[in-house]
């Protein structure tokens, strides 16, 4: 036989359950706009039935709140983070490739293709009037304008490299902060969960941090049970441990003392673990925005640009296959070394022709292009026009002969310069084609980055919606819950007052 006052107790559990549910609904509604918040739900259970010892057996004893749980599917978390990693990589690439493309946008700019064209136009005029000072002057000035354009372009591209380098440092800093925070959250979560219950909101915070981390670098997360309600959470980035439950590692950046590519900006950062372990920046499995930045900063199509010195001490730039020091991506160093290759081929051919000839006055020809500073290899950055020619344009060689009988109009050397334009000495193509191919390469890679980003962003929003479908707070649902729980509360209250009336009747009026 159950207690006479059981009904009151049952109603009380109903009130408690409704109270807990309506509070959780309030919590959900308040966090409707919180990033990474997973909706919570009160799980209720009918309380243990009491054996009444009567012929109807047991009687229910109300409801019990077993816990407040979050609704979240970790399957979507993994999917989301994997995509986030790709998204992060291409977001960075799209951003930087757009910058590179802006500098190489020959479609809109009057850039190097126009400069090159202008140089040859003035050579064409020189052919007609080789002794005309104004024409010689225009050749020199066009050459100067060409070299200055390449100087500026090379500097601009190097600035892009510097920017990406700074961003690598920032990203490394962010990884470190996240790593520290996750370790600290691990501790707090275990503290709470050891005393029963679920650290819902702290878990949301940790998941949020992991989402952020996955954008920077590819991560692996495992959570294993250690007993007593304690969990061990291990986070690995590109296979190396970043966080191991309460312990965390950090990355550090150190400025390089020696350049990898000859035209690199000074002091690019190497990334390594603070504990001295190696962090392989050029690992093929690395992913995320960090990978994107490294590709942009160091990608030289699988080669490294080195300086070689020949027997007579002349320096030149050369590409050497080396996949340990860069990636196969076509980043800033690739475009700079393409420009360098063009300048090297172009200027050495022009100089070779000019120095083999004579001026109208019979003096030996001097090179048109030189380097700005002694003892440097000729490159897009260092190339300039011989100051002797700027001062006196008539020093430009136009003929191969000193024989005055040929006359001042004889300019076979200029013919050779003109023939150079259609000479396929730039990797099997003409200079114009080579320059155009640089533009094409940048255009195609930029297009690739843009369309990859678009795809990954689309996938991102799809997965995100799938996640939201599970963990998102729905206003209509909560609105309905408010009503539902309010009514449940009201009903339990009503139940109490009914019970009260019953007891009143029983105690105060029955048998009196």
């Amino acid at each position, binding site marked *: 036989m159950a207690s006479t006052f059981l009904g009151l107790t049952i109603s009380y559990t109903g009130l408690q359950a409704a109270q807990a549910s309506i509070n959780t609904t309030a919590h959900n509604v308040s966090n409707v706009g919180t990033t990474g918040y997973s909706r919570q739900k009160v799980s209720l259970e009918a309380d243990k039935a009491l054996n009444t010892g009567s012929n109807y057996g047991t009687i229910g004893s109300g409801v019990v709140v077993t816990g407040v749980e979050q609704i979240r599917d970790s399957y979507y978390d993994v999917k989301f983070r994997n995509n986030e990693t790709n998204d992060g990589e291409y977001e960075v690439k799209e951003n930087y490739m757009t910058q590179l493309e*802006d500098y190489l946008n020959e479609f809109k700019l009057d850039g190097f293709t126009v400069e090159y064209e202008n140089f040859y136009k003035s050579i064409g005029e020189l052919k007609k009037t080789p002794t005309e000072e104004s024409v010689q002057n225009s050749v020199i000035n066009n050459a100067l304008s060409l070299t200055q354009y390449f100087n500026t372009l090379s500097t601009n591209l190097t600035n892009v490299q510097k920017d990406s380098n700074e961003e690598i440092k920032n990203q490394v800093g962010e990884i470190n902060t996240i790593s520290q925070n996750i370790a600290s959250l691990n501790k707090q979560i275990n503290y709470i969960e050891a005393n029963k219950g679920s650290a819902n909101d702290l878990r949301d915070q940790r998941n949020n941090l992991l989402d952020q981390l996955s954008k920077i670098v590819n991560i692996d997360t495992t959570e294993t049970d250690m007993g007593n309600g304690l969990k061990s959470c291990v986070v690995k980035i590109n296979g190396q441990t970043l966080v191991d439950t309460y312990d965390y590692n950090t990355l550090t950046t150190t400025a390089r003392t020696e350049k990898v590519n000859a035209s690199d900006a000074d002091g690019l950062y190497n990334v390594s673990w603070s504990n001295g372990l190696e962090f392989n920046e050029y690992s093929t499995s690395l992913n995320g925005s960090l990978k994107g930045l490294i590709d942009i900063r160091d990608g030289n199509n699988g080669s490294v640009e080195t300086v070689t010195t020949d027997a007579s001490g002349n320096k030149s730039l050369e590409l050497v296959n080396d996949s340990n020091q860069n990636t196969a991506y076509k980043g800033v160093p690739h475009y700079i070394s393409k420009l360098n290759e063009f300048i090297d081929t172009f200027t050495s051919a022009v100089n070779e022709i000019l120095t083999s000839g004579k001026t109208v006055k019979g003096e030996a020809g001097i090179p048109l292009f030189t380097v700005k500073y002694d003892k440097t290899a000729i490159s897009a950055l260092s190339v300039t026009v011989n100051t002797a020619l700027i001062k006196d344009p008539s020093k430009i060689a136009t003929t191969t002969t000193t024989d005055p009988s040929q006359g001042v109009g004889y300019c076979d050397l200029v013919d050779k310069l003109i023939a150079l334009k259609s000479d396929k000495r730039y990797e099997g193509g003409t200079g114009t084609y080579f320059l155009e191919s640089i533009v094409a390469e940048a255009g195609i890679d930029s*297009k690739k980055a843009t369309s990859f980003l678009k795809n990954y962003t689309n996938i991102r929003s799809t997965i995100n919606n799938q996640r939201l479908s599970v963990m998102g707070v729905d206003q209509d649902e909560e609105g309905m819950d408010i009503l539902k729980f309010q009514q449940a509360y009201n009903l339990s209250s009503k139940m109490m007052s009914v019970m009260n009336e019953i007891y009143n009747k029983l105690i105060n009026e029955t048998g009196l």
Partner: protein
Amino acid sequence: MRITNAMMINNSLTNIATNKAQMSILDNQLSTLKKISRPSEDPIIAIRALRLRSSLSEVTQYLEKNIPDANSWLSITQGSLKETNDIVSNLYQYCTQGSTDTFDTSARATIADSLTNLKDSFYSQGNVDYAGRFVFTGFKTDSSLTFMTSEEASKKSYTITQSFSNQDITSKTVYTNLVDMTKLDDATVSADEILSPSSQTVNKISLGYSNVSANNLQAVTYNNGASSIAINVTTTDPNYIPKTDDEVALNTSTGELVLGKNAYNTLKSATDISFTYDKTSFAKGDVKPEHYFTCVDKTDPTASISYEKSSAGQKIEYAINFAQTIQVNTEADEAFSIKLGRDVDELATSIQNVIDIEAKQAKLKSMKSQQAYSDDASQAKIQSMTDALGKEWDLADESMQKMFESGITKMQSYQQQITSANSDVGNRISRLTLTKGRLQEQQTNFKDLKSKNEDVEIEEISVNYSSAQLVYNASLTAASKVVKQSLLDFL
């Protein structure tokens, strides 16, 4: 699937953003009228655009710079050659006139003058320039064809190596026993001793110049330098006859190599005859040797300049199309024969001869009636001299006539030379015009292709823009509806 408000908002935002991006692309196209604004939007269009631009710029360079330049040069050449042709045709008329008509004394003097003037203007036509560059002097565009000032000309000193073929060996008439007026007052000469003049033909080679120097005499070489004949005699007598058959004499005043019989026969069958001589004291209007001959300018003895006359010529070529060039210049020796000047000089000299004889005749006539010569001996002497002069006049007149006659054919051949040079220029101009037409066609094609490649059709883009705007508006309306209401509005 459970749909939450956030999902709907996300979807709406994504859709709005997609439509906005499409609007932005179309907006860009509409305001630039270009299909793309950066290569990554369509790398193929971008690269094709660059190729077409570069081709177009090259065609434009040909069409707007090189062809007009070539055309100006050729037109100036043509104009000058036409003038030259008129001058030679004038000379030709004088020759036909001279060969048929008889002129009185005063007319002859005028003709001699005119001939010399025509010769001067003939060569000065070779000094025309285009934008400060002489058009007939090959690569030596800074050097005029003739000496422009007497001061410059007189200072110059050259060693000239002139080549001849056996065709260049001509003949001339020389006279012996010409009447010497001084013999009239010479008492030792009797009337019987005044000999009647006679003429003789002598073979000669005319050099490029008269009044050459007798210094540094060199042998005449032939058969490509394999054999030679030394020159030991120099003379200034226009009527010089070689003393021996093997002799070759240099007449420095007329600028001729006078050949003995054997020497003539040897050279007649020889090839590649060459003679090197010094020439100083040029006159204003003389052609500069470097434009015609291999020579050494020794004006500054410390820095002599040697000029080589190559058979390849000095062709100035302009690029007028892809892989097509045109020769713009005509070289002086193609139109302005150096022989014309010598021929005209000879004509003038032969006229002058007749004029001189007539002067002598007039003088004798007046002497005859003078008191001082009234004695019989003097009268007899005057009479025989008058007879001799008469004969001499006949000879001179005949020679003059012959000279004019041969002048007709010579002038014809010079005219022919000029006409052929001129028609060559004409051909090149018409080739230029053809190329220009083709290039204009090409330019239009390239412009068309370029426009097709990179320009948008404004009608198409306007329609697309309107429809994109419609879609964008629709997505905004839909979004506003989604966000506006929730269950709470109905509770």
